[in-house]
């Protein structure tokens, strides 16, 4: 308190006012950048938006040679692979976070935490490289092929042509978001007061009952925010997905073994082709704007949930 009032007194001096203004200007750059990015890209994409209208996001008809830019299949591929990644990653991440905070001895928990965090330090181009040369053959031979042989009556698992498909992209995305979801969940579980755990244990609860009665009910909101953050990361991931999804436009199907494409992957894969075609280039920029809008909504949602949980700042 005293410092705040002292600050007000001192800041009447010109040097102080100037310094304060400089810091405020730098802080505002974050806001200006975000707004500038949205405006500049929307402007550059405008020819494609006005050319295609609403069909840019509602039509499944991406045919640059015929100047047809309906990007629905990319939105579908993005959401399908990201949701698949969540289905795989959320249970694993929450169980990891529970083990590290509630079960493992403190030292082991910290050490394992570092190791899991390392997954986040691997660059996406390395995930892609490893995915193509190691994960694809492994999944094809030992998982996808058997699944497709025995379960092909389920529409999700038809016979497939290539190991680069929606399912493989979903698996690599799951690996990439496990460290995010489990790290945020760990923070959430740590905020549960120790006496609530101890009360449960003192009443004779087993460790799992303690988790279910004391830890999970208080953490629902925080874990939800963690899941949304992971979702946002998966939606925006470019390079690893570009390697593994197959890169085939206009595929909207529930069949996970089909080759498809995502918004980000398609921008990366078709960028060179579009170099000399202004409308095509504007359309790819437009896909970027759509991606930005989706991740902005996801992230704002997650941050609002975190804030409402009172763990802001």
């Amino acid at each position, binding site marked *: 308190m005293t410092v705040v009032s002292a600050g007000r007194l001192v800041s009447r001096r010109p040097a102080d006012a100037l310094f304060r203004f400089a810091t*405020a200007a730098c802080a505002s750059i974050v806001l200006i*950048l*975000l707004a500038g990015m949205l405006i500049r890209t929307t402007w550059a994409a405008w020819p494609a938006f006005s050319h295609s209208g609403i069909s840019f996001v509602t039509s499944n008809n991406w045919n640059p040679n015929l100047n047809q830019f309906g990007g629905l299949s990319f939105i579908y591929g993005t959401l399908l692979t990201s949701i698949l990644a969540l289905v795989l990653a959320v249970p694993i991440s929450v169980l990891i976070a529970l083990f590290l905070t509630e079960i493992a001895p403190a030292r082991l928990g910290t050490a394992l935490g570092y190791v899991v965090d390392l997954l986040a330090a691997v660059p996406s181009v390395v995930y892609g490289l490893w995915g193509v040369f190691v994960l694809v053959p492994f999944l094809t031979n030992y998982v996808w092929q058997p699944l497709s042989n025995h379960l092909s009556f389920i529409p999700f698992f038809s016979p497939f042509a290539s190991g680069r498909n929606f399912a493989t992209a979903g698996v690599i995305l799951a690996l990439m978001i496990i460290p995010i979801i489990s790290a945020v969940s760990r923070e959430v579980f740590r905020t549960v007061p120790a006496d609530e755990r101890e009360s449960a244990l003192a009443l004779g609860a087993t460790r799992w009952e303690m988790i279910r009665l004391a830890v999970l009910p208080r953490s629902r909101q925080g874990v939800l925010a963690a899941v949304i953050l992971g979702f946002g990361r998966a939606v925006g991931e470019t390079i690893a997905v570009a390697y593994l999804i197959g890169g085939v436009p206009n595929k909207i199907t529930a069949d996970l073994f089909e080759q498809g494409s995502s918004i980000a992957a398609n921008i990366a894969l078709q960028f060179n082709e579009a170099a000399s075609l202004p409308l095509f280039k504007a359309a790819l920029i437009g896909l970027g704007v759509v991606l930005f809008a989706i991740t902005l909504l996801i992230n704002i949602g997650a941050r609002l949930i975190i804030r409402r949980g009172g763990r802001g700042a």
Partner: protein
Amino acid sequence: MSTLGRRHRRDRFMVGAMIVAVVVAIVPLGFILADVVVKGVGQLSASFLTQPEPFVATAAGGGFGAGVRGTIKMVTLGTILAVPIGVMAAVYLSEYDPQGPLAAVVRFFADVMTGVPSIFVGIFVFTAVVLATHSFSSWAGGLSLGILMLPVIVRTSEEALRLVPQELREASLALGVRRWRTIVSVILPTALPGMTTGVLLAIARAAGETAPLLLTAFGNQLIVGWGSWNGPEASLTLEIFTNSRSPFPAQQARAWTGALVLILGIMIISLVARALVARRSRGSR
């Protein structure tokens, strides 16, 4: 008795599931690191870091010298752009008006900005710089990395500044030192180790970026001079990306070695960051 048995079985089952989950996450990490080392170490040499790819790309030999240099140049530019702005912004958030409306909005959107896909930042710099100058360039690549680093540096620096004891501020102000001198001479030096950690983590993240550079620096098989920034330039990640998509074994082998170099670089930076954290927490307690 049987209820108790069931409860304990359930407990053991769930703990078992947790252990399985940890293993499921760690095993792929182990395989990734092992595969990168095994497939990459064969070509690793000093010349890999300095030589360009062979003129005939499918031939063996050569290295990712172009990419190593490009990554160093562009990450450095990004750091030079992002650190002063990020630290100044953090000073505002922590020292001037922590509870104010501008601080709240900036904090919120800095967090949101960390979630913006890196390829979108690439698209923005492509429209703002590459289209305007009619050329891919190292400038554009470095700028896109700087934009990606900025929100990380803002938030980590603010955390570091908040850990500076309140007594230090009060003591300095009580001696009649002006606010800005207090910040520059007392608070920032005290927070330096913590801020360095944040900057190093941002550098590690930027060095591993591919997507934004694809649209801004574009890539280049040739080594570009240290002082030349106006044309397309390679990065380690871009060379890994293009070489690994080739059907020729020599290029794939180079991609693995490039991945090894990249991961080693990132690990070293992260370890230094961790060591700084460890030293700081030991020093203060």
